[in-house]
């Protein structure tokens, strides 16, 4: 046994790696879309939307992701929504939570664009949607990219909480190995290294983006 046991379990660890990566990528896509949408709607100051969006933001930013995940998973079961399996529940919870945090990153970027840009665009007859798409958002890209990638790194690690509702990702698979062969320290050390291997390149990328923003 010993390290040989962990080596023999590499298939299980790989399955966990795939589970983590799939959930991370799915959440990056859905969370970014939601965050962008919320940020654009909030900064557009549309009457009647401000309060509901603010409530969404504060609720999901202000409560633990683990609680949200359990709430959605068991809440769906309670309501008899059988199609909500662990992956779906984890994705919904992560999307709502990360979307709230990402929306604040986009909002900061949008508000950093001088208001004269909007005024000039309106004077030219561009519509609200056209102004966001062709004038504002392209200018926010360099501002939001570094913090956005930083948020994605946190997001990858947040997917570990999906283990609590039984989704098979790295932590959950690691636990499964420990159940068979013990050695929790060694197994979790390996799991940590795998997380690091996923996150470190993202961290380097964020650092490069940041330097490029500071010294264009």
């Amino acid at each position: 046994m010993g390290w040989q046991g962990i080596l023999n379990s590499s298939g299980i660890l790989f399955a966990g790696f795939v589970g983590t990566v799939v959930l991370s990528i799915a959440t990056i896509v859905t969370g970014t879309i939601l965050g962008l949408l919320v940020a654009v709607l909030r900064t557009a100051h549309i009457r009647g939307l401000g309060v509901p969006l603010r409530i969404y933001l504060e609720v999901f930013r202000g409560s633990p992701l683990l609680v949200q995940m359990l709430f959605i998973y068991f809440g769906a079961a309670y309501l008899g929504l059988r199609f909500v399996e662990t992956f779906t529940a984890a994705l919904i919870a992560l999307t709502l939570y990360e979307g709230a945090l990402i929306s604040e990153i986009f909002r900061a970027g949008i508000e950093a664009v001088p208001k004269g840009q909007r005024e000039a665009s309106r004077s030219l007859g561009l519509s609200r949607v056209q102004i966001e798409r062709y004038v504002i958002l392209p200018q926010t890209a360099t501002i939001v990219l570094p913090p956005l990638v930083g948020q994605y790194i946190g997001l990858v690690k947040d997917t570990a909480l999906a283990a609590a509702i039984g989704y098979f990702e790295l932590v959950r698979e690691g636990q499964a190995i420990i159940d068979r062969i013990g050695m929790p320290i060694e197994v979790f050390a390996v799991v940590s290294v795998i997380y690091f291997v996923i996150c470190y390149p993202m961290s380097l990328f964020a650092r490069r983006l940041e330097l490029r923003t500071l010294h264009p």
Partner: protein
Amino acid sequence: MSMIELRNVHKRFDELEVLKGIDLTVEKGEVVIIIGASGSGKSTMLRVINNLEPIQAGEVWVSGVPVHDPKRADEVHRIAGMVFQQFNLFPHLTALRNVTLALRKVKKMSGAEANEAGRAALARVGLAEKADAYPSEMSGGQQQRVAIARSLAMEPEIMLFDEATSALDPELVGEVTGVMRQLAKEGMTMLVVTHEMGFARDVGDRVVFIDEGLIAEQGKPAVLFTNPSNPRTQQFLHRVLDR
């Protein structure tokens, strides 16, 4: 029908009343210069005409469009072009793309049509060779001329200038006022908020002096500059001309 007509326009920012009942009529082809101290409400009046600020009372008509009616206010943007103190060029687009964006998205021109119209507009302000330059690669005067070209390309009936030369180094003012003089000569209806008294005297058909949210005096430049009747106008002109 007048090109611009303001009737008893009131504008408040919270407690502060900036426009206290403005009446103004501008005819087609007229060049009207707006002068007044900072904070007098002259820029606000221009912004009200261009639907950038809502008003609390009164009516604003621009070439038949009721700008005071929120449902129809946006129509003014097809009629009026505006040039800002801070240029407000789109920094992520080249000069040509700055000019063609609205041609493609608002006028729905094809890429080729828009490029042709855009190059023509840049040529009109003497910047044909800067088509591929980004705003950060141009001087302030060049940027402001691109901003003028961007508005002109949309073929507006009226041009609004909000302190278009105030952010420029003194030696760059001339190239921008030169373009404005040319426009006036071509018969464009212009409303110009400015501190350039020489330009006002040469180009203006009429000078309007705004003081504390009201039109205190207006008249032909020759008369208003040499023989103002209102003591407030006298004071103001004394301050700006005898610097």
